[in-house]
Each structure stands twice: as C-alpha cells, then as structure tokens.
C-alpha cells in the first residue's frame, strides 16, 4: 500500500513536470530578453526534474507515465503578461503535485518533495512578482475567490 502511494505520488509529479515543460515552451515564445533567459533556465530545471522522477519510477519497476503530445493550458498566452501568468500557474501545479509526495511514508520522498516545492515556489514568485503564504495548499474556503453564478 505504501509502495503504491509513493508510486502514485511520483507519477503525479512526473505528469505535472511534463505539463510544465510543454507550457514553458509556449510561454517562452512570448517572452524576450532576461525573462526569456529565465524561462529557458526554468524549462531546463523542469526537464532535469522530469528525468530524476523517471529514474525513481523506473527503479521501482514501474513504467513512467508518458508525456502528452498536447496540453490544454489554463491560460491563453497572447503577450508577455499572460506568458508570465501561465508560467506562475504551471509552477503552482507542479508545487501541488509535489505536495502529494510529502504525504507518503518515506523519509526520502518527503524530503525530495519538500525541496522540489521550494524550487517551484521561488519560480512562481518570480513570475508573479509576489510570494505566497501557502504554496501548493488549497486556499481555505474563506479565501477562495467568489465565482459569480449565472442566474
């Protein structure tokens, strides 16, 4: 059961890394100068994380989930601002995926997930221009944005 949980957490993190790699490719095309260089650097970090996760899954005699050919991105990128918003959103997604790894009963995986969350939170803060109090955690009910309901 514990092995299964660890594997599920690793696969979820890998899927999130794959989505981030794809998304950074889209965002990077709308960035320039130092922002594009940063996007390139972060893209490389995500690829390295993907490779590390793939190795960890393979070492558990499991098949890593395959990356998709296309991802339905949460932000439509049209300019620099929306590219930065997409990059921040991608980092949030990866942070949340690593949060699952922190809950498994393995000292090593907990530590790995927690350190990966730190990298993601730093990158998200760069793109967003501000930090967050609880990266990866769902917002408490009282702090969730109110979504108007069509009547």
């Amino acid at each position, binding site marked *: 059961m514990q092995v299964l949980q660890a594997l599920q957490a690793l696969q979820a993190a890998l899927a999130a890394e794959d989505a981030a790699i794809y998304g950074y490719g889209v965002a990077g095309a709308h960035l320039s100068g130092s922002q594009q260089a940063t996007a390139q650097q972060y893209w490389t970090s995500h690829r390295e994380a993907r490779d590390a996760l793939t190795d960890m899954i393979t070492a558990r005699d499991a098949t890593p989930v395959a990356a998709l050919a296309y991802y339905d991105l949460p932000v439509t990128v049209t300019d620099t601002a929306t590219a930065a918003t997409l990059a921040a959103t991608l980092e949030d997604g990866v942070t949340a995926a690593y949060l699952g790894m922190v809950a498994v009963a393995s000292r090593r995986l*907990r530590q790995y*997930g927690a350190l990966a969350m730190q990298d993601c*939170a730093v990158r*998200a803060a760069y793109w967003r221009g501000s*930090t967050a109090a*609880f990266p*990866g955690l769902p917002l408490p009910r009282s702090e969730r944005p109110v979504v108007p309901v069509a009547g």
Partner: protein
Amino acid sequence: MARRRLLIASATTLPLLLTTTGCRSAGLFAGPDPLGPPPPLAHSTVVLETVIADEVALISLYESAAPGGSGVLAALLAEHRDHLARLRSRLVVPAGSSRRPHVATPRPAAVRPSVSRLRAAEQRSASSLVRRLSTVSVEPALAQLLASIAASDASHDAELGAL
C-alpha cells in the same frame, strides 16, 4: 436506585481500592491506566509546538526589522503571521497531557536586523521545517503544511535577495 448508586460508587472508588490493595487497574481494564501518569504528547504535537516557537521568533525578527509596517518586509511579515495562525489552529493538546505547550515570547532585537540576517533566518527556517517533516511519525497533513511553509520561506529568501 440503590443498584445504580452502587455502580456509580464502584466506578469512582475502584481505582482507590485497587491502589490500596496494591493492584494496577491497567491489569484489569483494556484502556489506559486511569492511575498512571498522563499520556505523553504525540510526536506531531511536539513538532508543532517547536515550529510555532520558531515562527514566533521569526515574526519578532521581522517586527524589529520593519517597525513601520510597509513595503516588502511588511508583506513577508503578514505571510509569517498567516503561517503562525494556521499552525496554532492545528495545535490541540489533549486534556491530561503530561505537559502544556510552552511558546516563549522572544525579546525584540536590540539592533534592527539587516536583510542578510532575515535571509539567514528564512533559510534556517526552511531547512529546519524540511528536517522535521521528513520524520515519518509526523502525520501527513502536518507534513504538507510544514512543506508549504518551508516553500514560502524559501521564496521569502529569494525575494529578500532581490532587494
């Protein structure tokens, strides 16, 4: 009626009777020994107490660094206060525990802390949180909260580095 009174009396006087006769009630009952010492705090509770104390110290440092309460430092201070509130909301110490939580009130820094000192404190906090959450006896939900706070602290360090 007399039978009910007898039953109530048994529940209260039996432990006393067992003591005077040299018996341990735990040998007769399946639950915790009512005559034994209060149960120790769970490991997660001990970790939570320590983390709360560290967060209080960090807040005190920020309050000394940004007494005016504006700008980046004030924003980071606000997030630390959010951390503290969320941590405290999780702290439930069962009645009869062997000790009560103790959170020391740190003294304000005599000299206004520099940004580099704040960065060092954020780095220490993030490392310490990861070390604590890695212990498997820390319950998963608490481990996730500590990981999230550690990630926030790491981003604070980066934010301070850009000042």
